[in-house]
């Protein structure tokens, strides 16, 4: 029996929108996005979440990592101890060991590539102003260790003499979309998360980077003992990297299994894949 790292039960979320009706009266429309959703993510595995546009995948991630409240349910994060995530703040959840990447990157534009890595570091010594001022020696040492770590992470994926390290002083705003996406994945290594939620890691990325992203995901799981939960639209990629797959439709998980099994599921074929 595989170990579980994330266990979601009976999760529901509705958005309330005010709409204009034909009689020009304001009305409130309730859109129920997640409906008694149950889902489990296995420890040490890559689990994919697939589903149509607007089916609530990103919303589910936002609830798991605390950016959004849920209406009901429970989300248990099992990392040594069992933590109920609902009701916790995003930064608290991150410090428990749950990280994420974003569909729209969220890179620190004005920081350099290296600074983007360093700022993600788990060790926050030196981020307290007094320590910054009064313990320069120790501070410098930790900064050096973090820099070494960043270098190793980048070279593990791209080899020595790679673009990212050569341009480490370049501001991140000058990077291409694909490079920013990769940077968003690379910084996750700095933070030593136990479970990471990756929102469409390959979307908008040139296929030449697919191999790098595959490398990154495999490294997360094999070398760094993370568990990965990712949203993907690229079925080929899902088949290639994921151990498990869930299909979300009408607010709950309608098919689960290996990627091959889920892709063969008639409901998935009819409603999502369209063949």
């Amino acid at each position, binding site marked *: 029996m595989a170990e579980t790292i994330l266990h979601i039960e009976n999760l529901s979320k509705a958005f309330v929108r005010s709409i204009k009706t034909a009689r020009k009266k304001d009305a409130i429309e309730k859109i129920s996005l997640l409906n008694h959703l149950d889902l489990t993510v296995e420890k040490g595995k890559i689990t994919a979440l697939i589903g149509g546009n607007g089916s609530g995948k990103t919303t589910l991630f936002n609830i798991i*990592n605390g*950016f959004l409240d849920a209406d009901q349910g429970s989300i248990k994060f099992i990392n040594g101890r069992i933590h109920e995530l609902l009701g916790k*703040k*995003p*930064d*608290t959840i*991150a*410090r428990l060991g749950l*990280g*994420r990447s*974003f569909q729209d990157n*969220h*890179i*620190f*534009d*004005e*920081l350099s590539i290296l*600074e983007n890595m*360093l*700022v*993600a570091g*788990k060790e*926050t*010594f*030196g*981020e*307290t*102003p007094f320590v*910054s*001022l009064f313990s*320069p020696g120790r*501070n410098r040492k930790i*900064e050096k260790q973090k820099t070494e770590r960043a270098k190793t992470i980048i070279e593990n994926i791209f080899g020595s003499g790679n673009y990212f390290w050569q341009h480490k002083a370049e501001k991140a705003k000058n990077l291409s979309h694909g490079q920013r996406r990769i940077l968003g994945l690379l*910084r996750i290594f700095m*933070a030593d998360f136990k479970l990471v939620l990756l929102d469409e890691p390959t979307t908008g990325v040139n296929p030449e980077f697919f191999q790098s992203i595959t490398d990154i995901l495999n490294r997360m799981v094999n070398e760094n003992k993370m568990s990965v939960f990712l949203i993907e639209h690229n079925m080929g990629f899902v088949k290639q990297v994921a151990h498990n797959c869930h299909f979300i439709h009408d607010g709950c998980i309608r098919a689960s299994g290996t990627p091959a099994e889920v892709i063969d599921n008639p409901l998935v074929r009819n409603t999502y894949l369209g063949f």
Partner: protein
Amino acid sequence: MNYLLHILIMVNIYIILTVSANLIVGLANLLSLGQAAFYGIGAYITAWALMTLGLTLFPALLLSILITASIGFIIGIISLRLKDDYFILATLGFQIIIYTVLYNWISVTRGPYGIPGIPSPKLFGLVEIDGILPFFLLSSILAIAVIVIFRNLIYSPFGRALKAMRDDSIALLSLGRNITKLKTQAFTIASGFSAVSGFLFAAYITYIDPTSFNLDEAIFIISAVMIGGTGNIKGPLIGAAFVVILPEMLRFVGMPDNIAANMRMIIYGLILIVLMMFRRQGLAGDYKF
């Protein structure tokens, strides 16, 4: 010579104010309209410490910084819970409250009469800092100390976290950083160091009254920060030097004082407008407003 030194002392006082304000207005992107209040609190605490408590230079300075920073911490905790514009309004409210208290709590602050005859601070109880040259030296040393401290902060992991927060607070949250704590730390430090200017002003001029620390002054400080530019150290330095030296230049070109006083506000206003149109990062800043 004395005239020149006087200008330079005032430049030093404003450098400390703008370099401090840069940490919140520039790095943390929090537009605080309450910096003159902290400047004023620092000045009044200094007057109390030197006159009533009879403290020497460093204890008085330290006390002034500590009390002002504590008030900054409390104000920070309250106002930083508010978002963007509401934060600005909260600091504006604070600024107005402090001014009103200084003006009306006559039994303590002497209100509009001000506090005259603030004694010169004594260095270790030995050397009296009195006269324009000693104050020039003292203010330069303090300004340099503050510049060094803030330079270190800006380029420290703490400064990096603030810059990251300015760029993308969502991403920083997802990396486990407590945003409110970061903001509160920046606000407390910036407010505390504004007291150094208050100390210098009170001890140098030897007379303080509430009008030196009103809303106009708060806006003046922010204007200096914006004109110079934020995010680095040279921006606030240039801003401070610019706003202090400009009116003196007007005097040099022969403009009568009463016209120059109005002219100066008009010129600041125009410069701000022109900068915001054509050079939004100020004269030497990293960030666009």
